[in-house]
């Protein structure tokens, strides 16, 4: 990348930072009822409560969950060299959903003061991570093809169990399960949000720091290896960190999948395929897009709410189709 190209790339990343920051400042003000700035600043009820406890946490959750899922999608597309890969391809998402469904069926509300569905989702994701890694490893070598096949198989098994539990659960719990499986962004406590933001930020930094390695790995394993990349180590790092990003986001939002597919493709087509630019932009724009869809979902059918995942798919799907037609 020449000096001019580098300056252009920095400008693009900066614009994405601005979009992310603007979303964080503006979107909490968007909702079915207007909020008074004065009352919010004085923390007067109900505006202060709605802004600080509901909309701000919800917007920040959407920003970082969307960012994590989008970065996870970019990462899995590079590691698996599959442009249709998403954070859900390798079964982590379905494992998390299965864990949450079990908890809903058991009727547990909290475990050690933490929402029980979060614990279930994280446990399910971790279990799938271990199963897929163990099954794909042979002679201390993990092939991406093995990961892909095992992930798809585990995905199917977990999906079948979810359907089984869904059909055996009573009406109330079936409704809770389907509500969770739609995926949505809801208000959360600042403690949970703080832990989530920390996990996503640290993992995202770790992933983005190795962007040059993802560039090489996305071409070919041999191509990467003969240019000095420790391929085995990088594949494991990619799978584990992608799974952490996915599991953390899904535990709090439910399975919102499309953002992990659409944003990497949009950024690749419109900004750059180079992972040094692609990854930070995908993180920032993925978060912005999910937060925007969540804000839209709050107002388009107010007082009813449209889940962010639904809004995202309705807007993003046609755009992706148009983009594919335009590029090809």
């Amino acid at each position, binding site marked *: *990348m*020449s*000096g001019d190209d*580098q300056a252009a*790339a920095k400008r693009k990343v900066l614009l994405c930072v601005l979009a992310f920051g603007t979303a964080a400042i503006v979107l909490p003000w968007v909702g079915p009822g207007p909020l008074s700035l004065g009352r919010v600043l004085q923390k007067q009820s109900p505006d202060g409560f709605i802004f600080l406890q509901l909309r701000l946490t919800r917007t920040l959750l959407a920003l970082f969950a969307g960012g994590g899922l989008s970065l996870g999608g970019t990462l899995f597309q590079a590691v698996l*060299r599959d*442009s249709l890969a998403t954070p859900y391809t390798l079964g982590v998402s379905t494992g998390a959903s299965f864990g949450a469904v079990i908890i809903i069926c058991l009727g547990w509300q909290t475990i050690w003061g933490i929402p029980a569905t979060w614990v279930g989702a994280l446990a399910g994701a971790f279990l799938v991570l271990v199963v897929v890694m163990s099954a794909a490893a042979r002679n201390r070598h993990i092939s991406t093809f093995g990961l892909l096949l095992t992930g798809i198989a585990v995905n199917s098994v977990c999906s079948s169990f979810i359907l089984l539990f869904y059909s055996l659960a009573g009406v109330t719990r079936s409704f809770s399960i389907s509500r969770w499986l739609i995926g949505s962004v809801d208000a959360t406590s600042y403690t949970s949000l703080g832990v989530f933001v920390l996990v996503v930020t640290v993992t995202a930094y770790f992933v983005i720091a190795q962007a*040059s390695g993802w*560039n*090489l790995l*996305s*071409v*070919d394993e*041999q*191509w990467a*290896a*003969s*240019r*000095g*990349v*420790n391929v085995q180590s990088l594949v494991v790092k990619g799978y584990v960190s992608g799974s952490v990003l996915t599991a953390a986001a899904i535990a709090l939002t439910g399975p919102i999948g499309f953002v992990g597919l659409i944003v990497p493709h949009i950024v*690749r087509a419109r900004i750059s*395929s*180079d992972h*040094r630019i692609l990854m930070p932009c995908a993180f920032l724009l993925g978060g912005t897009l999910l937060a925007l869809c969540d804000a839209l979902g709050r107002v388009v059918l107010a007082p009813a709410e449209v889940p962010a995942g639904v809004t995202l798919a309705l807007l993003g799907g046609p755009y992706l189709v148009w983009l594919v037609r335009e590029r090809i």
Partner: protein
Amino acid sequence: MKPLLKAQGISFSFPGRIVLEDVSFEAREGEFIALMGCNGAGKSTLMDMIVRLREPSRGQVLLRGKPLSEWRSDQLSHEVSHLPQSVRTDLPYTVEQLVLMGRYPHRTSWFDSPEDVEAAKIAMQRTSCWQDRRRRFFTLSGGERQRVLLAACLAQQSRLLLWDEPSVFLDIDQQLSCFQLLKEEAADGKLCIAVTHDINLALTYCSRLLVVSNHKLVVDIATGEARHQPGWLGFLSPRLELGTGPNGNPWVWYQ
């Protein structure tokens, strides 16, 4: 001069199938070696073992006298550049981005340094793909893609160039340019090993021929001698005959 590369009795087999058995040879900087053999003879496997993409089941490969297994990946990539037989054709990267990936071993900062950009530019100019630098890889023809991959290998600036069928997909003029380029690299003190099926290109440009057949290295001969001992041609095909071209150079004819 000490050999840069030394293969000591290396063997490789897949479960139930021997690919290579007890292959030994030495190679020095300044040599341009053609590695030949029929399809499935094990040429690419031999290349893979030299670049440590595969572990020999027996024997070892030494680079600068040190077993390959003792080299760190980043150190090895400074010494060896490898052109694989093929890569994905649907890559979204531009030509320039792909060539700059060859600079990964030299990278010291987040973005490419001016030295990286200059090395990539020279490599693209030498392989005639500078004019395509802004094009995406998936929009290129097979020959254009091959030239980009060659440029990426050149940009790596390694001492040992291991190129697996570098002239595949190239038009006749580009094939000649490719082998001329490798000859220049060898003259510059590098060791070049190219897998090829084009015997005349090998005879014209290479300094030494290795032929793999029946799992073994059966021919290891200087090109000058090969011109007078045509027996090695039998390992490649029974229909070949060594003659002389219009300019007096050896030329292989087929019946």
